[in-house]
């Protein structure tokens, strides 16, 4: 028994949401959905847990506040206290109002940047990453549902649900690469066509250029 991947392509987010709910209700698992924009309610329908990203941001912010407090205490009180404008810096508490703005900025700095780094890390996003959506149309106007299944009976059942809920295309593949390759071929054909067209244009320009230079 080999694992198969069923791909259902939808053109409408409401249909997709309905299909997800139906498939999950029948006891199957919707493994992945690729969409051009966030579809509200899809995460709960698919049974995804809530994201803990906001909590990490809070913790990073706390960390930033503590670190900058330590730095400011060391600079202004610990290492080299100075009398500035007649106001001595011998205790941190008495000078606290002057330290609030920088504490706030450092909190935001750490909370924002470290959260974004966590987000990129958790999603495996980085410049030069080759990972992508299997069907290029899902960043345009289509929604792709991916269900992993090995039982052929269940496969036909899922395909039936997909058809009922209005899927435009239903494909069964052995792995993701098969689908990727399919679209890669289309793209390469497009590129070749374009290159040919631009070459033709060039030769056309050359003809004109030759004509002019002959004259």
């Amino acid at each position: 028994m080999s694992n198969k991947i069923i791909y259902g392509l939808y053109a409408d987010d409401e249909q997709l949401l309905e299909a997800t709910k139906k498939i999950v209700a029948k006891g199957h698992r919707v493994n992945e959905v690729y969409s051009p924009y966030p579809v509200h309610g899809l995460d709960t329908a698919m049974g995804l847990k809530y994201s803990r990203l906001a909590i990490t941001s809070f913790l990073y912010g706390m960390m930033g506040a503590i670190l900058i407090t330590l730095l400011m205490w060391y600079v202004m009180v610990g290492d080299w206290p100075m009398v500035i404008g007649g106001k001595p810096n011998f205790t941190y508490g008495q000078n606290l109002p002057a330290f609030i703005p920088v504490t706030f900025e450092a909190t935001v700095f750490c909370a924002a940047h470290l959260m974004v780094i966590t987000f990129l890390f958790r999603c495996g996003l980085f410049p030069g990453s080759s990972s992508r959506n299997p069907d290029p149309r899902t960043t345009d106007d289509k929604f792709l549902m991916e269900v992993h299944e090995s039982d052929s009976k269940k496969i036909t059942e899922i395909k039936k649900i997909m058809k009922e809920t209005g899927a435009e295309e239903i494909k069964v593949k052995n792995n993701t690469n098969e689908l990727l390759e399919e679209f890669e071929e289309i793209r390469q054909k497009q590129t070749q066509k374009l290159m040919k067209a631009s070459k033709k244009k060039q030769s056309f320009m050359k003809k004109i250029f030759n004509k002019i230079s002959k004259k």
Partner: protein
Amino acid sequence: MYRSPVREPLITGKKDLHDITEDIARPIETKANKWWWSLFIFSVIAMIWGFGCIAYTIGTGIGVWGLNNTVGWAWDITNFVWWVGIGHAGTLISAVLLLFRQKWRLSINRTSEAMTIFAVVQAGLFPLIHMGRIWMGYWIFPLPNQFGPLWVNFNSPLLWDVFAISTYFSVSLVFWYMGLIPDFAMIRDRAVKPIAKKVYTILSFGWSGRAKHWQRHEVMSLVLAGLCTPLVLSVHSIVSMDFATSVIPGWHTTIFPPYFVAGAIFGGFAMCQTLLLVARKVVSLEDYITMKHIEYMNIIILVTGSIVGCAYITELFIAWYSGVEFEQYAFLNRATGPYWWAYWAMMTCNVISPQLMWFKKLRRNILFTFIIALFVHIGMWFERFVIIVTSLHRDFLPSSWSMFSPSFVDIGIFVGTCGFFLVLFLLYARTFPVIAQAELKTIVKTSSSKYNKNKNE
């Protein structure tokens, strides 16, 4: 799905999802027109001229500016505050309007955030140049060093500024880029030319639009908006404290933080209007940046302009009410002294001209909006000039009273930053998706004229 029976559609021209993709990708996939090239060449020349003036300043010293003993701070800080202020509208649109769930922000947030980043780049140049010895620029950071040990002073608003501006710039940049990733992925998936494909593959960070990624992306955007909202308020508050914590009459005012923030949003929205009115024509985005968007922005200009006007009058009243002669003279001198023309230029442009926006006909008129936006730029520039130069030029000793006149270098640097700003913006307009299409697609069903048939149709 809920469809409003009253509201005007935010996307006109009967667009569906695929049309949006096509329209946003078009400027990137096609060649620039004559208008773009002529504006680009014009701004590159201005930029080069500005860079020349900066090089001259750094090579010779800031004596080449029009400063004198009495007025030791003039166009440099005026331009700095002006540019930082312009940046504020972008963050307001993308962060504050996100928290308030204002859907009309979706067509304009990308461009206004770009404006923020490019404006803060210009602003950041001025503190660097006016240090005089730019190669010592790293002294502004609290680094362990061999000079004493000489640390930075965390009591000083100028140091707060360092933290505020660098946090503001970097967080806005990241916020902007995270929103761009899904749109770069869209361009990547359409790209046919090999080089474009490669470039947009790198830029899109391997975005795939998985459900879990979108869920995280949304949480992240919301938290970043929540962080940016107090951040944007803090940045201009801190900029205003550069003045407010000093003891110069005319600067030593507690009203400065809210007054500067309102002024920043006011000036920033005007810049947003200027850029968007041009951009919607040049890259034909009239269906996305509609009359309704322009009207909404004009209303914000009206509101913030009124707050600014209120602040000017409060300042005058408090100067009189305080009973401090020096404070009273500082304000009398502003309005009736040798710089009266600057004061009244500010008053006319910032207080009177936006009041015309009360008329619906006027605020829905593109040419009128454009002219008022230019007025606001002038007014907001003069506001900073008035605060800075008129408070300084007649100081504590009448024998040292003087006037300030800018040298060609002062003017050159200012013109140069305008050019640099435009260069960045023009390059952006042809290589980046100028509308946050992934976000915009979420409102197609509720707000596109194709699906939302209401009484306006």
